[in-house]
């Protein structure tokens, strides 16, 4: 079958994206920790003049974490695992290699332009779609290149059947492409007004309520197709590979895939409950959010059952710990989300800190854990060295778990407290609290959250250090490990 005996998987593009994952992960979490601390200690707003206020930094935090850290992680794991499940090397096609590297270069330019332009204040003010139109054009280019690489690799594959991970990568590619294009339809004012004003500025194609619908159709599904779908792609490959256990049920994975694809898109309007969008859409969003538990748990249970009879690995291998915990947090946040989408719960939860709390148990507990575990798994194979320190990894695990628990518990309490105080009335039916009362009461929770941020960031630094040492001075490996990643 194999004509060229020296043929090997080529990880050069995967390595490049590994570096940006670590870099942007650190940067995004650093800014996140800073803005968390600003809410507890407002003096921290004045570190960098107008560029250091909470409001300017908040979109920077979200964008770096979504488009810098997570998307880099998705690309890195894609360029690693897609070759392997298709049994074809990037080195076999000069064209695909070129596309991959070009994609990386453009991606880095885009990411830097994003950081600078958001700091300068060029923002469309649509959440998670803040980048202005010239950057949107570049984003489309990067994304198309990824598509070319993806379908190019699939085109020359040796394995006829696509593995589960690839379904999810394909869905990520298509879903983000469709949603991003529709949500970022905007008219550059410079071009439409005969060259007046700033070239970066644009207006949305949609107005008011329509804009809100499209935005949250995107906003929610950015969560679906960036924070969920490609991360499921990772766990379907890396958990079986690291544990040496084939996936518990291929059939179940098929069903939950198609279920997830169908249901997820409907749920976007749960961000707009009690707003001015038509009632039937709000109800639709609410109902489908609850239905969404089924396919989400389908995947998560499939993961946990994969470990059936092999639970001893949980104590022996910290990487398994990371992955099992990630899928547990996936279950938790996919249960929490639908609860918040119930209209009466949403009336209290919306606009409060419970929402960032929910996002972060998903992102810190599920997305970041899974990306870090995947990179740890990839490192010995890409660099042909064992992982530098198991002890450090264990310590990182416990530190970050503590951080996540502190984060979401404090935000749950903060959110519900504030939601209840906003609506509290005295015996005559008058509002009991002025708005500032409901802010002042949150201070202890904001302090705990800032502490959680510091812990998580410290854990991430330990991860980065461990990865760096693995790449450079760790003990060399003679043969590629088959399943369990070797670590010192």
């Amino acid at each position: 079958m194999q004509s060229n005996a020296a043929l090997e998987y080529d990880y050069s593009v995967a390595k490049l994206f590994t570096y940006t994952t670590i870099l942007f992960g650190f940067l995004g979490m650093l800014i996140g920790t800073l803005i968390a601390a600003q809410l507890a200690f407002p003096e921290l707003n004045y570190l960098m003049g107008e560029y250091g206020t909470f409001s300017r930094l908040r979109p920077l935090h979200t964008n770096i974490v979504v488009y810098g850290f997570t998307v880099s992680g998705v690309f890195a794991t894609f360029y690693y695992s897609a070759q392997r499940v298709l049994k074809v090397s990037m080195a076999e096609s000069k064209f695909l290699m070129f596309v991959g590297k070009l994609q990386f270069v453009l991606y880095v330019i885009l990411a830097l332009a994003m950081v600078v332009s958001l700091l300068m204040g060029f923002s469309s003010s649509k959440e998670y779609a803040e980048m202005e139109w010239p950057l949107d054009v570049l984003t489309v280019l990067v994304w198309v290149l990824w598509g070319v690489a993806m379908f190019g690799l699939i085109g020359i594959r040796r394995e006829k059947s696509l593995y589960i991970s690839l379904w999810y990568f394909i869905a990520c590619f298509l879903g983000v492409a469709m949603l991003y294009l529709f949500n970022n339809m905007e008219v550059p004012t410079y071009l439409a007004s005969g060259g007046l004003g700033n070239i970066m500025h644009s207006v949305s194609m949609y107005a008011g309520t329509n804009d809100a619908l499209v935005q949250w159709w995107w906003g929610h599904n950015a969560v679906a197709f960036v924070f969920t779908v490609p991360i499921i792609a990772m766990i379907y490959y890396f958990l079986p590979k690291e544990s040496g256990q084939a996936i518990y049920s291929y059939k179940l994975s098929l069903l939950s895939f198609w279920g997830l694809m169908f249901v997820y898109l409907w749920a976007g309007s749960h961000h707009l409950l009690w707003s001015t969008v038509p009632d039937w859409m709000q109800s639709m969003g609410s109902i489908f959010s609850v239905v969404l538990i089924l396919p989400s748990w389908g995947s998560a249970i499939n993961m946990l059952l994969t470990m059936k009879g092999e639970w001893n690995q949980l104590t022996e291998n910290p990487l398994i710990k990371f992955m099992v915990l990630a899928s547990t947090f996936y279950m938790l946040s996919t249960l929490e989300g639908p609860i918040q989408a119930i209209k009466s719960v949403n009336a209290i939860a919306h606009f409060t800190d419970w929402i960032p709390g929910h996002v972060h148990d998903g992102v810190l507990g599920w997305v970041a854990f899974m990306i870090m575990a995947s990179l740890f798994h990839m490192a010995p194979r890409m660099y042909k060295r064992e992982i530098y320190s198991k002890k450090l990894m264990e310590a990182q695990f416990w530190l970050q778990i503590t951080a996540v628990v502190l984060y979401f518990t404090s935000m749950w309490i903060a959110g519900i407290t504030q939601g209840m105080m906003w609506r509290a009335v005295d015996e005559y039916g008058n509002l009991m609290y002025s708005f500032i009362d409901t802010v002042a009461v949150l201070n202890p929770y904001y302090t705990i959250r800032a502490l959680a941020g510091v812990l998580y960031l410290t854990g991430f630094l330990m991860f980065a250090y461990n990865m760096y040492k693995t790449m450079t001075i760790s003990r060399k490996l003679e043969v590629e490990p088959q399943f369990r990643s070797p670590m010192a």
Partner: protein
Amino acid sequence: MDIRELQGYASFFMTIFLVVILYSYIVYLYKSEKKGEKDYEKYGNIALDDEITSTPIEHNPKSQSEKKELNK
């Protein structure tokens, strides 16, 4: 018939249609495996046995020719 009504019908029938497809899919998967016609779980091994030198679960007949084209 205005667009709202059309929307309602489209939504209703498309949902029914997709649900029927999905459920017949489930039934088909489990039935054909029970009868021994198909083995789906073998595809789970794609992730485990993923060396470039290992034998594909199902060989892709197109791979050689297309590979040559892309390498030109």
